[in-house]
């Protein structure tokens, strides 16, 4: 009996460690939840990717933010009115608003530009998974965001996002969460390279994907802009 219970526990521990997680996590929600809100938007990709992003993101935002909105686009470019309405509501009622742009190369910045400057100043952190969207950082900071994280090339950002979101929400600074995300992503790339017998180029993938932060990388979830 004991063996039949201990073996799956050991295998669970192996899965947790190989996923890069801690065996005995002990997390609290950082203070100030009622002062922050978040919006996430997923672009039109295959149903499995939309579903996976929804499962991973929705509950995290709901748990760690006073208010959160999650959008999934059915077509490229749709949902602008709903997104802008929700963002306006968030900016009007919360002093710190984070944006998670979970989409391939995108220009959601054009949706935010027309908003009044007094509201845009409440934008705090913008994370953009889009390929080649690192260059938008300066524009987001000019719009009013305090910090922006993006990827330089054809990025495989889901690996990074898996670590970034959880560490940032659990109280790490953006710099710490980004470092953990980049390290976790590199570990996964190296594992894939080994499994593929060298056909997958982890170095190239990392150069294209490694995230960088512009703005205040010392920001924590509980900080207000």
């Amino acid at each position: 009996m004991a063996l039949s219970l201990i073996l799956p526990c050991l295998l669970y521990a192996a899965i947790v460690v190989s996923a890069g997680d801690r065996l005995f996590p002990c997390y609290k929600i950082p203070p100030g939840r009622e002062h922050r809100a978040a919006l996430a938007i997923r672009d039109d990709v295959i149903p499995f990717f939309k579903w996976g992003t929804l499962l991973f993101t929705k509950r995290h935002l709901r748990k760690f933010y006073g208010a959160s909105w999650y959008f999934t686009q059915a077509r490229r470019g749709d949902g602008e009115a709903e997104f802008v309405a929700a963002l306006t509501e968030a900016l009007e009622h919360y002093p710190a608003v984070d944006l998670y742009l979970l989409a391939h190369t995108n220009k959601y910045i054009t949706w935010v530009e027309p908003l009044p400057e007094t509201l845009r100043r409440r934008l705090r952190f913008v994370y953009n998974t889009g390929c080649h969207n690192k260059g938008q950082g300066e524009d987001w900071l000019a719009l009013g965001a305090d910090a922006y994280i993006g990827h330089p090339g054809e990025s495989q950002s889901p690996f990074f996002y898996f670590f970034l979101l959880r560490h940032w929400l659990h109280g790490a600074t953006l710099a710490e969460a980004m470092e953990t995300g980049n390290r976790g992503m590199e570990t996964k790339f190296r594992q894939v390279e080994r499994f593929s017998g060298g056909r997958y180029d982890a170095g190239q993938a990392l150069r294209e994907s490694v995230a960088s932060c512009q703005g205040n990388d010392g920001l924590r979830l509980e900080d207000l802009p």
Partner: protein
Amino acid sequence: MIRNYGRFLLAPAALFFQVVPALFLYFVPGLVYAAGHTVVETRAWTGSITGLACLALAGLVLASTASYRLLTHSRAVIAWPMILFFCVPSWLLSVFYLHAVLIFLAWV
């Protein structure tokens, strides 16, 4: 007859059961998102997590029961290879789904 060999059938059945979560992962995203949004996302999230959690736990119970019966009713020379080939893969997949559920619930 089946009763006598039940302990040997349960282990392959536990592994074969892992087809169900695979089918779940294959079909549910399509039900939620194909041809527009047919299911409200909040309901899709709750249903998906519940389904995945139930399948993970069912897989664990099946594999654990199979290994228990093999260890208590069969000789070690038969039990251990069967556990290795049938129960361990089933456990691995089940704990993988379980960990995914805990992550999706933002508990870990």
